[in-house]
C-alpha cells in the first residue's frame, strides 16, 4: 500500500508519526493513514481570553475544516515533539550597542529554557543572510556568535525570511523561526508575494519581534489608511505565528521566553484530508469546543501540484 504525501514539507511531522521506525518521535498510538489521502499535521495554539494555555484537550474537543470540509482528527499530541528554533537577527545599521547586549541575554536565556531535545540555530542578516551557528544547545557558542556580530549594511529581510523557511528541517521536529528585525527591506530579491507563497509551501511557524511601528508594508510602499498589513503580520497569520512589539522598555528576555512557551504549549493535530481536492491551496479552520478558547493555527497549506 502506497501512502501519498503530496506536500512533504508540511506533513513531515505526520510522516514521522506515521512511520514505525525506532527513531521517529511517536505518539502512543501511531495513526493509520489511508492510501490516497493527504496526511496533515497542524500546530494549534489554544488559550483562554486571558492568554493562559488551555491544556487537557482531547481529539473530540477539536473541529477541523479543510477547505470547509470537516475532517476527522486521528491523532493529537501536546508538548511531545522536539523543537528546532531558528533565531534570525537583523544586524543592519539599526541593531547596535546596548540593544545587541540585550539580544544576547535574551537568546542566551532562550537557550537555557529549551527542553532537553530542543535545539537552536542562529542566523544573522543584513544584505547577506548568514547562518552563524547551526542547530545546537551550546549557549556559549551562540553567545559568542552574537557578540561577534558587526552591524551595518542594507537589509535583505524578505530574502532572510525565505531562506529561513526553505532551510532543511528535520521531519520529526517542530520548526519555529523567530525574527528580530525592523522589517525594513532594502535589497531583497524576494517580494512579499513570493515569501507568502513560500510560507504556504513550508511548515515553519514565523514569529516576529519588531519595533512597535513597523514601516514596511506588504504589497505596497506606504502604510496609509486601508493599505495592506505589514509583511510580518501577513506571514505570522499565514503560519500560525505572532508579531510581538518591541521598544526600549521591552523586556526582551521575557518576550523570547513567551514566544517559546507559546510555541511549546501547542497541540499538534493530525488528520487525513478527505473529501477535498488534493491539489491547490487548502484553508484550515480549527475550532475548539470551549466557549472561552482563542485558537491560533496556520491559515492553510499548499496541496499537491
Amino acid at each position: 500500500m502506497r501512502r501519498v504525501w503530496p506536500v512533504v514539507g508540511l506533513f513531515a511531522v505526520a510522516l514521522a508519526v506515521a512511520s514505525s521506525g525506532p527513531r521517529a518521535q511517536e505518539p502512543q498510538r501511531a495513526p493509520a493513514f489511508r492510501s490516497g489521502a493527504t496526511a496533515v499535521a497542524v500546530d494549534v495554539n489554544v488559550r483562554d481570553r486571558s492568554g493562559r494555555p488551555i491544556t487537557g484537550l482531547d481529539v473530540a474537543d477539536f473541529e477541523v475544516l479543510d477547505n470547509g470540509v470537516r475532517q476527522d482528527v486521528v491523532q493529537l499530541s501536546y508538548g511531545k515533539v522536539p523543537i528546532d528554533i531558528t533565531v534570525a537577527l537583523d544586524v543592519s545599521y539599526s541593531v547596535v550597542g546596548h540593544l545587541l547586549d540585550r539580544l544576547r541575554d535574551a537568546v542566551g536565556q532562550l537557550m537555557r529554557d529549551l527542553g532537553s531535545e530542543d535545539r537552536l540555530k542562529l542566523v544573522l542578516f543584513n544584505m547577506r543572510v548568514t547562518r552563524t551557528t547551526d542547530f545546537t544547545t551550546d549557549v556559549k557558542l551562540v553567545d559568542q556568535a552574537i557578540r561577534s556580530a558587526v552591524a551595518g549594511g542594507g537589509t535583505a529581510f524578505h530574502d532572510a525570511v525565505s531562506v529561513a523557511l526553505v532551510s532543511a528541517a528535520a521531519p520529526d521536529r517542530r520548526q519555529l523561526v523567530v525574527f528580530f528585525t525592523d522589517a525594513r527591506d532594502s535589497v531583497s530579491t524576494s517580494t512579499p508575494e513570493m515569501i507568502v507563497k513560500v510560507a504556504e509551501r513550508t511548515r515553519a511557524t514565523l514569529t516576529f519581534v519588531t519595533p512597535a511601528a513597523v514601516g514596511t508594508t506588504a504589497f505596497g510602499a506606504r502604510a496609509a489608511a486601508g493599505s495592506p498589513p505589514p509583511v510580518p503580520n501577513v506571514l505570522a497569520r499565514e503560519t500560525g505565528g505572532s508579531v510581538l512589539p518591541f521598544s526600549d522598555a521591552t523586556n526582551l528576555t521575557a518576550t523570547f521566553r513567551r514566544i517559546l512557551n507559546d510555541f511549546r504549549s501547542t497541540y499538534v493535530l493530525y488528520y487525513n484530508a478527505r473529501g477535498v481536492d488534493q491539489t491547490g491551496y487548502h484553508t484550515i479552520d480549527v475550532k475548539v469546543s470551549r466557549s472561552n478558547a482563542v485558537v491560533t493555527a496556520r491559515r492553510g497549506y499548499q496541496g499537491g501540484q
Partner: protein
Amino acid sequence: MSRRVAAIVTLVALTGVWPAGQAPPQSPQFRAATDVVMVDVSVRDGGRTVTGLRAEDFALTDNGVRQRIESVEAGAVPIDLTLVVDVSGNPRRPVGRPPSEADVIGDVNRELRLVAELLRPDDRVRLLAVDDTVQQVWSFRDASSLAVTRIDHDGQASLYDTLAAALLQPVEPARRHVVIARTKGVDTISSITSGTVQAMARQADALFHLVMMETAFDNEAALAGYQCNPNLMGLCWPTRRFWVPFQRRMLGPAPAHQLLPDGVTMAEAAESTGGALHKTTVGGVPSLTSTFRRTFEDFRNGYMLRYTPQGVARDGWHAIDVRVPASRNYTVRARRGYGIEVLPPVPAPAAIPDAPRTITELVDAHSRGARQQVMVGLRQASDPARLIRDFEEAGNPWPAAPRREATFAIEVAEAGLFSPRPTARRQAYALLERFTRLVRHPLEAETFERYWHFAVLTLLEGAIRAVDAEPFVERAIARFPAEPRFVLSRAIVTDQRWAARGMRNAAVDASGTPTAPHVEAVRLAYSAAIALPETTAEARVRLGWFLHRLGRHDEAMVELSAAGAEPSPDASIRYLRSLFIGHVWYSLDRTDLAVAAFREALTVAPAAQSARVALMNALVLRGESAEAEALAEAVQIDASPGIDPWWTYWQGQYRFYPAAMTRLQELSR
C-alpha cells in the same frame, strides 16, 4: 631583556632549570644571572639500586663539555605521577561480550590502590584513560583518594593523543613529573602520530615509561571481528580519522613481539626522557605496579644532579651524558638532553598611523600620497560639515596644482554626501557646485573636466538622492552632450526618483504608483542612452526592470531580450539581465523559464545571493524542495567577499567611482 626571560622560562618548562634567584625549596643558593640544569639520574648495579653516590662520583658532559656538578640530591623532591591506563576495546574479546564498566573500574581501582602504597604524602597522581577520546579521569590529587567511579571504555584507542596530553602537562618547579602509561600497543583513532609523541617527549620535562601488553596483538581476525560487528550487518565502526591509517601497532606477532616502526619510535620517545619501553610477558593483563615497581623505586632512589652549564652555547639542543667512572658495571639512566628554545625577538608591530582628522592632516596625507589614510580619515569624519568648511576657508593647499585641489574636493564632498546630517550634505553639494565652475576649461571641454564630471555623477548616483543629483547631470551633459555615460546618468537619476520615495518631487502618487509624466520621462531618458552603443545594454536592462516594476512584463521582456543582442562586457550587467529575465518570467507564471534564467545568472556570478534566493523561491513553487534546501544552505554558509550586483543596482554607476577617481588622480599630476 625580554629575550632572556623568554629563554629562561622555556628552559624551566622543558628541562627543570630554574633561573638564578628563583630557586626551588630546599635548594642551595645559585649565582646570579646564570642558568642551572637539573638532571634525574638512576644508577643500578645489576638488579640492585646503587645509593650513596656523591657529586664527585659522577662525570657529566653537556654537549661534550665536562661540567662541574654543584650538588646531588636524592629522593627529596615530591613527585607528580601521571598514570595512563588503556581501557579501549580489547580486540581479543569475543564479539557481543563487552566488559562491564564495573569490571573495568574494578581493575583500575585495584592498581590504583597498589600505586598509592608506593607514594609519599607529598606526591600527587593524575589519571588519564585511553578510549575514543582522551579522558582525564581526574587531575592531580593526593594519593589518599585514588578511586575511579566512572570511565568510558571499550571504544577505539586514542593512544597517541592521550600520551601527548600526559607529556604536555606543565611541571611545577618544586616537583618532578613521571608519566607511566599502560597500553595495548595499538592506536586506531588518534589525530597525531608516534613521531609527534616522540618529539613531545624529547622536549617534555617528564620521565616517561611505557608498558605494552602484548596479549591482544596476535589475532588479526579477532581485531576485525571486534571492529566489524555482525549484528550490524557487517557494518564496521570507523577506525581512522583524516589521514591516520587503519591501525598502528607497536609490536609484531607472538612469539617474538618484535618492535614495529611505531614501537621503535615510542621506545626512543621513552628513552629520550630517561625512561623506557617495557614489554610484558605475562599472559593476562599486566599490572601497572608489578611492571613499574622497580622503575619507580629506581626513580625514588635516584639522584638529582645540578650543574651550571659552562663552555657551551646556551641556546639550542644540549646532549647530556652521565656516567659513574668508578664502576663500569653500573647502568646509569638519565635523560639524553634538553633544549633551550630560542625565541626570535618579537618585532614591534608596525605603528598604525592615526587616521587624519583635520583638513590640515588630510591635506598632508594627500600630499604624501597616503591614499588609504585619506580615505579612512574622510570616512571616519565625525563632522563632515566642518571639514568641508575648513577646506573651503583654507584655500587651495596646492596652489600650483588646481586639478589636484578639484580632485581632492570630490573626496571631501563624499564625506558629506553620505552623512545623515542635512547640513553636511548641503555643504557637500555646494562644494561640488563651486568646483563644477572651477574645472570648466575656458576654451574647450577637455579630458580632465570630463572625468571630473563622471566621478561626481557616479558619486551622486551612489548617494541615491535623485533631486539633488539632477542639476549636476544637466551641467555635465551641457558640457559633454555626446558622452554616453552622462546620458545614462540622466536616466538613472530620473529612475531613482521612484526609489527615493518620500522625498520632495517624488515621482509617485499617493498610492505609490509612478505618475504618467514620470514614466514617460524615464522611458525617454533610457531610450536616449539605448541609442548610444556604449550604454545600450545597460540602458535596456534598466529600462526592462523599470517596465517590470510597472507590471508591463511583456514590454520588459522585449527590452531585456534586446539587451542580449550585444552582450555587455560588464559582468554585473550580464548578471542583472539574466536575473531580471527570471523575475519577469516568474511574473508571467513561466516558472520553468524563470528557473532557467536564474541558473543563467548564476553562471555569471555563482555566489550571488539574489539569484540563489530567486532560484530557491522558484524551485519551492515547483515542489523541488531538495535543490531549494541546498540553495538555502549555500546562501547561509557563503563566505565569499564578493558584492552581489543586485545590492548596488539602485546606486547606478557608483561601481565606477573608484576607477574614475584613480583616473582623475592620474590626470591631476
